């Protein structure tokens, strides 16, 4: 049996770990509220933009002259996976789940004979994917804290992506992130961002009257809106990710705190037993010593 001293040290260390996880849980809870509000505040813009793009796209005939962001390159060979994760761990299965989904999809596409390249936002996704596909990275960004990212940053990433798309580096881009459903559930999600997926758009096109006047004409507006749409989709994903990360972190830290509590209880029992055993032995020694006299 471990000595009394060793047990005492052990209990002390678990206690301080518990203090840390408890503090982290509370920080995550506070940040979660803010991130959730931010994610919700960004929805009106994204929804309206989607509706407008949908209504215009449904009017413009898709042909060879239409913007590449809408029509695609006409090929389906090189797929780019934009994997958004966080820079920090200690958030339960948050990063693992996103990376796992990306890995599974990559496996499927590679089995079909396609080429898959990666573009990661966040250190953690890079770490996992780098092990499996070390030669297929075209770029990775380490943004630091997710909740500090503004729309300008997202727009910058989007412009970079679009420039690579125009240069013919890939044909289709998929975005991987975690959708924030509730504090307890975050769902890893895949979304096609380049070219704009038409089925998703067609479903949204209802309820817009046909007699709208455009200034300048539809095509020019569309050419302006499509890059903007990529930016906003990325921004939305980052916001959702940020809320998901905090939600996941809160749950993970809550579990860790509870586990530490259980461990402390077990160790204390062990410590008390050891103490009693030591006292009993001492007593027996004294008594038998006294009897011997």
């Amino acid at each position, binding site marked *: 049996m471990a000595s009394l001293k060793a047990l005492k040290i052990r209990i002390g260390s678990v206690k301080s770990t518990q203090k840390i996880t408890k503090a982290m849980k509370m920080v995550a809870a506070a940040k979660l509220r803010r991130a959730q509000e931010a994610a919700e505040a960004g929805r009106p813009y994204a929804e309206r933009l989607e509706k407008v793009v949908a209504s215009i796209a449904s009017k413009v005939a898709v042909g060879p002259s239409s913007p590449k962001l809408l029509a695609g390159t006409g090929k389906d060979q090189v797929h780019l996976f934009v994997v958004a994760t966080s820079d920090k761990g200690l958030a339960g299965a948050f990063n693992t789940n996103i990376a796992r989904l990306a890995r599974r999809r990559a496996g499927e596409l590679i089995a079909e004979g396609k080429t898959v390249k990666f573009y990661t936002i966040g250190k953690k996704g890079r770490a996992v994917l780098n092990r499996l596909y070390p030669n297929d990275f075209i770029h990775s960004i380490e943004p630091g804290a997710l909740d500090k990212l503004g729309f300008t940053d997202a727009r910058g990433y989007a412009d970079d992506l679009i420039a690579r798309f125009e240069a013919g580096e890939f044909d289709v881009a998929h975005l991987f992130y975690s959708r924030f459903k509730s504090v307890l559930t975050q769902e890893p999600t895949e979304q096609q961002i380049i070219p704009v997926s038409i089925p998703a758009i067609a479903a949204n096109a209802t309820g817009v009257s046909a*007699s709208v006047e*455009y200034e*300048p004409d539809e095509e020019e507006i569309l050419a302006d*809106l499509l890059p903007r749409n990529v930016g906003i989709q990325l921004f939305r994903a980052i916001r959702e990710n940020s809320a998901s990360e905090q939600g996941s972190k809160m749950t993970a830290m809550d579990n860790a705190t509870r586990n530490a509590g259980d461990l402390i209880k077990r160790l204390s029992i062990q410590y008390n037993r050891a103490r009693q055993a030591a006292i009993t032995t001492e007593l027996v020694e004294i008594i038998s010593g006294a009897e011997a006299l």
Partner: protein
Amino acid sequence: MLHFELVTPEKLLRSEEVYQVVVPGTEGDFGVLEGHAPFMSTIRDGNLAIYRADKSEPELVPIKGGFAEVSATGLTVLAEQAG
């Protein structure tokens, strides 16, 4: 009254009833009053002028990048940066 909404990617900035809004469109400024025909335009960087009542002093809100949409429900300005 005209229902007016100003939205940025970060949040919904304004949602209110106003008399008139003058929007800096790419091809020229245009004023929107209640009952305007459905219309959509991109905007250039400039100031939105919001008139709360007829002939009142306009409130100027600087905006950057985006577009304006007029539909049956009112005017929606989607700007990348505002305020």
